[in-house]
């Protein structure tokens, strides 16, 4: 259980990540809003509590690694990184501008604090497993966190990795599936159903948990349990809502990569600010 203040701190951080994400994408007028907002709570838990890192020394040898395999959620990750001091907040508004260090999809060679290049779905799964295995070979205790989209696990490569990671006992690998149930073309259940993701990973030999991906306390608890695993890689299936925090798209089919007008941006930010204030007052 988290202290009330700790929980509140993480909830506030999540709201700030959401607001930064909206401003980042809003400054351009289009972007992957839905799948960015749905992982804000997870990023708040990772950067606010669970991950070991030093923003002043991004390549710190002792750091934990994060592979955001759903690379299109870059804007959420950039927002978290800016909040943690990896680069100035003002840089967020360079998203996808010519010559930017903040491209649509995560790039380890461009962005300070990004550990792996991703974008072609499924591939971050394997690179994360490689990093985790490399750490084990060197007797290091760094954790490797992997964020997968739900539609992304339709890629066969993810299941190749699932076999590999279990066989190699990569207990330093903690993966998340952002199970928001919506992919680009529709509901995952209508396109290519994923079924019970936790059960599937369990059957592949993983330690797997289902949690409410918008409950920072539950997510933090799940990560804590996952960290205690000695033999198995961990999967944490986050039950989430695509576009969480912005009611105009939340849970709907129009939230994958919408245009965001100035009016919509202001309305979204007002909604998020409202939620932020309520958390601060202890109402939410």
């Amino acid at each position: 259980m988290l202290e009330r203040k700790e929980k509140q701190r993480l909830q506030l951080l999540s709201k700030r990540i959401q607001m930064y994400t909206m401003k980042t994408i809003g400054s351009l007028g289009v972007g992957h809003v839905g799948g960015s907002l749905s992982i804000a709570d997870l990023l708040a838990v990772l950067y606010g509590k669970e991950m070991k890192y030093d923003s002043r020394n991004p390549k710190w040898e002792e750091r934990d690694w994060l592979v955001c395999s759903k690379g299109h959620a870059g804007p959420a990750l950039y927002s978290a990184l800016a909040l943690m001091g990896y680069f100035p907040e003002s840089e967020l508004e360079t998203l996808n501008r010519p010559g930017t260090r903040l491209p649509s999809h995560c790039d380890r060679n461009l962005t300070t604090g990004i550990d792996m290049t991703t974008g072609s779905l499924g591939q971050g799964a394997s690179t994360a497993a490689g990093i985790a295995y490399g750490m084990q070979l060197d007797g290091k205790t760094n954790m490797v966190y992997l964020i997968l989209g739900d539609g992304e696990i339709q890629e066969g490569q993810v299941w190749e990795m699932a076999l590999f990671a279990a066989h190699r006992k990569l207990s330093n690998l903690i993966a998340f599936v952002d199970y928001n149930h919506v992919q680009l073309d529709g509901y995952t259940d209508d396109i290519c159903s994923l079924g019970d993701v936790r059960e599937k990973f369990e059957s592949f030999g993983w330690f797997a948990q289902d949690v409410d991906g918008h409950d920072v306390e539950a997510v933090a608890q799940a990560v804590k349990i996952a960290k205690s695993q000695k033999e198995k890689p961990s999967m944490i299936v986050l039950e989430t809502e695509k576009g969480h925090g912005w009611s105009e798209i939340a849970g709907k089919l129009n939230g994958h990569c919408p245009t965001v007008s100035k009016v919509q941006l202001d309305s979204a930010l007002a909604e998020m600010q409202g939620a932020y204030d309520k958390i601060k007052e202890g109402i939410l």
Partner: protein
Amino acid sequence: MIRLSDEILPENTEMRKAFCDTLMELAGEDKNVILMDGDLMGAMGTKPFAQEFPEQTIDCGIQEANAVGVAAGLSAVGKIPFVHSFGPFITRRACDQVFMSGAYAKLNVKLVGSDPGITAQINGGTHMPFEDMGIMRGIPEMTIVEPTDIAMLKSVLRQMKENYGMYYMRLVRKSCMKIYEEGSEFEIGKSVMLRDGGDATVIASGYCTAQALIAGEILDGEGIHIRVLDMFTWKPVDEEAVILAAKETGAVVTAENHNVINGLGSAVAEVLVKNNPVPVEMIGIQDLFGEVGNLEYLAERFELKADYIAAAVKKAVKRKTKQ
């Protein structure tokens, strides 16, 4: 230094044995060297490596896409992974992983694809890569090599380990023709002139290199004297040597155990059309699929043998005269 063999005869040792021995040397010197495979260690003869360096061996099972991704991740934390599978599977199947997880991410993975072209023999068309080099050639920053014999393999493999970046090596598993003496050292990106002559140049690679030398003998008897370049690096191709050959001999024949589309013929032609256009003929797979057969049959079937190279030279020389 490069020393040519006095006689062109089959090697006594298989390429896979030399591959395994050299990698074991490298792994002994540097614990970051990792050998990965997709359930073909038995076929590649690398089980001795696995026995001696179990901690540096990863047999992933039959999952090339994951293997290449894992290799990219390993290289991000300082490992130097060599990933082997049959040529078609490491290139065709895992192309996107090579591209994004490896090359685009600027990582350090060494890909090894065995059984190039007709050397896949009775495994047939499904396993017979005529397109592997072409696929890899289209990916920026890849270095692409086809070692000719054991001496070259040893030299090139060590350079692949020592130089940071993405490499693809296509490699015969069995015996090759010995062209170079043991201990010869090669520079990736620099071709080797195996013989000189003023009438035309054959730019060859892999299986076709020895055939080009035989073609040279045949043509000598007919009063046509050719230069032969061993173009074992396909990318970056040795532009300087290609341009010089065109200037000094006036006609070029390329000879490769690969589709002429997107292969060595294309690479050489790209250099020549921009710098010094001369008649070019291309010996290689004429945009066909492979099929089962032994090496002799397939070399004849796909017209890769010395006779065909010699005929192509005569055609190129004739075109030169017309011009």
